């Protein structure tokens, strides 16, 4: 099958990445009872014959011997990556997957992008090519990183550029964790805006994530499971925040629960490419349907359900509730309310025992309360994957190209301007080779232009609908 290649860059990226591979193994173990290396597994893992050591040949069929992730882990500090290599995932990774350094990027985008980018370019290209060699057919790169720091943000976007140069045909999906207003990294607005320019110009699709939203979801689950409000017991492994059933047996780190949400997002996003279903949805289809204009490629995501109750019988009321929740403010992974803004396009990827009639019924039901742009009134892309996530009988991932991302970008711009007007901390950046004032002015200009595009769309909302006149044919 066509493969996806994840790159985890920076501390945040690697923490999420770690959860991702762990949960991916859990998901495949649940489906693949006979331990056969199948097409689904091959999208994320190679199967190596380790009798000749780690450099053994690939085994394409038959029993699972030793699984190796198709991935690159990049960090300029060793802490997180070392933990991965000492933890239960150590057999899934080896030195071929890693690019590390020791000193970190000092929360400076320029250090990550210009210094480490230059320094590690060849190394990255080489490891990238080697990894790609083992991929029959590469469809998509995933970059997982945060925007606010130095490595994930700077080196991560450097890698993005590199991918476009080396493999222009392969789609580039970026999962970006945006900093909150209370972020303790003072320069996070600089790092984020500098990174945004790269995302604007070089990413095919961006899935922005905000820690506040993840945090709120974690709290909501905590409240629901501990309040005694739920009649039956909650299935532990069904929690979107849970590591239950995965290899992780050590004490969960504070961010693990939040990172599990992002990991589940990626698993759901790729589920229809890995598993069968009556209406498949590949990653290139997501890009095709959800990006009507090249720069408007920021997709707001939501995952439901957040947990499953132990009773197996799911009446269709509860199924419909799942669809309703996907459009509610508190299930979105950024602080946004798509219902009150303008949709350019929307995708629904359903997993499990859900059929086309359930999909249609819910679209008809929810449509009237949503605002779609005039030229895309029926802008729905749908997918049905037969295999549900672990612990669930069904699930839904919604991806919205919606103007509700605008406030996130406006706030980012405001925080940037607060610092930039006073030239605060600017010298840390400008002293780096290759960095000039124009890097900053171009970056904020790029962000302003993007915000303006969303403004123009918002201005059309609720306006009169004038359909263009059709071609006239001489009778």
């Amino acid at each position, binding site marked *: 099958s066509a493969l996806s290649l994840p790159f985890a860059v920076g501390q945040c990226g690697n923490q999420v990445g770690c959860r991702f591979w762990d949960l991916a193994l859990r998901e495949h173990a649940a489906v693949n009872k006979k331990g056969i290396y199948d097409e689904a597994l091959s999208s994320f893992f190679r199967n190596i014959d380790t009798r000749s050591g780690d450099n053994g040949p690939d085994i394409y069929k038959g029993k699972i011997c030793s699984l190796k992730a198709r991935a690159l882990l990049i960090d300029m500090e060793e802490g997180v990556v070392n933990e991965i290599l000492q933890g239960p995932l150590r057999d899934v990774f080896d030195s071929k997957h890693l690019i590390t350094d020791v000193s970190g990027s000092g929360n400076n985008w320029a250090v990550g992008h210009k210094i480490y980018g230059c320094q590690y370019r060849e190394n990255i290209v080489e490891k990238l090519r080697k990894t790609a060699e083992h991929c029959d057919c590469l469809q998509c790169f995933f970059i997982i990183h945060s925007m606010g720091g130095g490595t994930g943000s700077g080196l991560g976007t450097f890698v993005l550029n590199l991918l476009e140069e080396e493999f222009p045909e392969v789609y580039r999906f970026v999962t970006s964790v945006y900093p909150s207003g209370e972020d303790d990294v003072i320069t996070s607005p600089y790092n984020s805006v500098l990174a945004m320019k790269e995302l604007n110009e070089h990413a095919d699709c961006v899935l922005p994530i905000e820690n506040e939203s993840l945090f709120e979801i974690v709290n909501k689950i905590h409240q629901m499971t501990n309040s005694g409000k739920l009649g039956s017991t909650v299935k532990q492994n069904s929690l979107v925040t849970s590591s239950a059933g995965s290899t992780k047996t050590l004490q969960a780190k504070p961010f693990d629960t939040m990172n599990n949400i992002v990991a589940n997002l990626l698993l759901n996003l790729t589920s229809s490419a890995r598993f069968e279903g009556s209406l498949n949805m590949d990653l290139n289809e997501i890009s095709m349907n959800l990006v009507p204009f090249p720069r408007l490629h920021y997709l707001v995501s939501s995952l439901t359900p957040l947990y499953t109750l132990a009773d197996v019988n799911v009446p269709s009321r509860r199924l419909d509730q799942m669809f309703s929740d996907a459009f509610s403010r508190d299930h979105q992974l950024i602080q946004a309310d798509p219902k009150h803004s303008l949709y350019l396009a929307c995708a629904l990827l359903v997993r499990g025992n859900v059929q086309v*009639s359930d999909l249609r019924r819910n679209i008809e039901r929810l449509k009237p309360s949503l605002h779609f742009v*005039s030229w895309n009134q029926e802008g729905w892309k749908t997918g049905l994957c037969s295999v549900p996530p672990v612990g669930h009988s069904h699930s839904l991932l919604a991806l919205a190209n919606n103007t509700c991302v605008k406030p996130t970008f406006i706030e980012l711009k405001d925080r940037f301007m607060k610092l930039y007007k006073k030239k605060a901390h600017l010298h840390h950046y400008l002293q780096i080779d290759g960095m000039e004032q124009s890097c900053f002015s171009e970056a904020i200009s790029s962000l302003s232009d993007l915000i303006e595009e969303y403004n123009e769309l918002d201005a059309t909302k609720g306006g009169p609908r004038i359909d263009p006149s059709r071609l006239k044919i001489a*009778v």
Partner: protein
Amino acid sequence: MSIVTVQLGQCGNQIGHEVFSALCSDIRGTHGLCSKKENESYQDSCKERFFCEEESGVPVARAVLVDMEPKVISQTLSMAARSGHWKYSSHSHFCQKQGSGNNWANGYFVHGPKHKEAIVDLVQKEAEKCDRLGGFFTIMSMAGGTGSGLGAFVTQCLRDAFPASFILNHVVWPYGTGEVIVQNYNSVLTLSHLYHSSDALLVHENDVIHKICAQLMNIKQISFRDVNQVIAHQLGSVFQPTHTAGGGSGYSRNPLGDLMETLVPHPEFRMLGLRNIPQMPESSLPYSTFSWPGLIKHLRQMLIANAQMEEGIDWQVRPPHPGSSIPSTNKALHFNTSIANLVILRGKDVHGVDLGSFQDPSLYTSWLNPQDAFNAWKTPRAFNKYEKSAALVSNSQFLLKPLDSIVGKAWNMFASKAYLHQYTKFGIQEEDFLDCFTTLEQVISSYTNL
């Protein structure tokens, strides 16, 4: 005569499987309700048409499976094999890894030329297995990227490689409210291209079949499999062997040719709609009886009033009085004007059925003789456990409204230039889009002015 089926994309392969399944199950059934001799003749004719015999005795479908990603073909092959009653040849499929990304231009301009040789080669091999080749039946959806774009390209290739053979395209129209956001673009591009290379387009609309599943088949949680099985039943009722009017005692030897001859008298009018009566859950069959006059009456009204099924028919609609019919009056009455109709009757007492009501000249446009515009095929051998069943294949205004709706939505999107960058990067230009819109506006105009 044999028909080679080409299954294109996820939809094409999923439906193709249900079609062969239905055909096979029908001939294996003991509910033929006719003489043993008749039944054996029917079975032989169906087998020759759609299957190849192998040493193992398991019939092998005369089909080529094409998709740009592997999962669906893999599933289709294994489902057929598991049935134990028929299978696909293990060498008749072509598959890639990437998919077409719902992008018509990707299917047509990239996958098409790249894989042309391999695909046509497979079709050639299947064609050579036929003693007499009756033509090609392609199954595709027009909403996605492979069935639509690659399907249009392959159809053109078949036309070039087999200039004397008939090509019938079965095209599935997606649900109006999105399966794919760019489905209207893909549809406009597909239909306009097919119009130039196909002999006829036989259309099924997901919205219509969905209603049949909900209201007639009483299915609560309708799956794509349910939809596909209804489609397969309707197709089977057209393609299983029948006696054509002048065919004497034997079954028709040229099913596709006969279909084209009766239904496509003019190249500007190639769109065929399909209606079937009765339709009900299998469990209800033993408790239902129908009379031919009742079935024919309903079927005729379904034609006139453009009803999608036998429930909810508008009986108020009447054909215009002779001498008063101008197109605009027809529109006001929602009367569906036909160019040509074909009624296929199967089962008990077919030969006595009076079909005079279908020869009423007021049903038809004025430029064809009603005798030429209407045909009936009959066989006493019952189909798929229905004691009596009737199918109507119609070249009429059935598809005018849905076509107009699709073109309208596509045009609306085109005017804002949304998604065009996704197509132009694969080689299609805005002028190409305009040409396609023009072709279809022409078709719409032609059908409107009947």
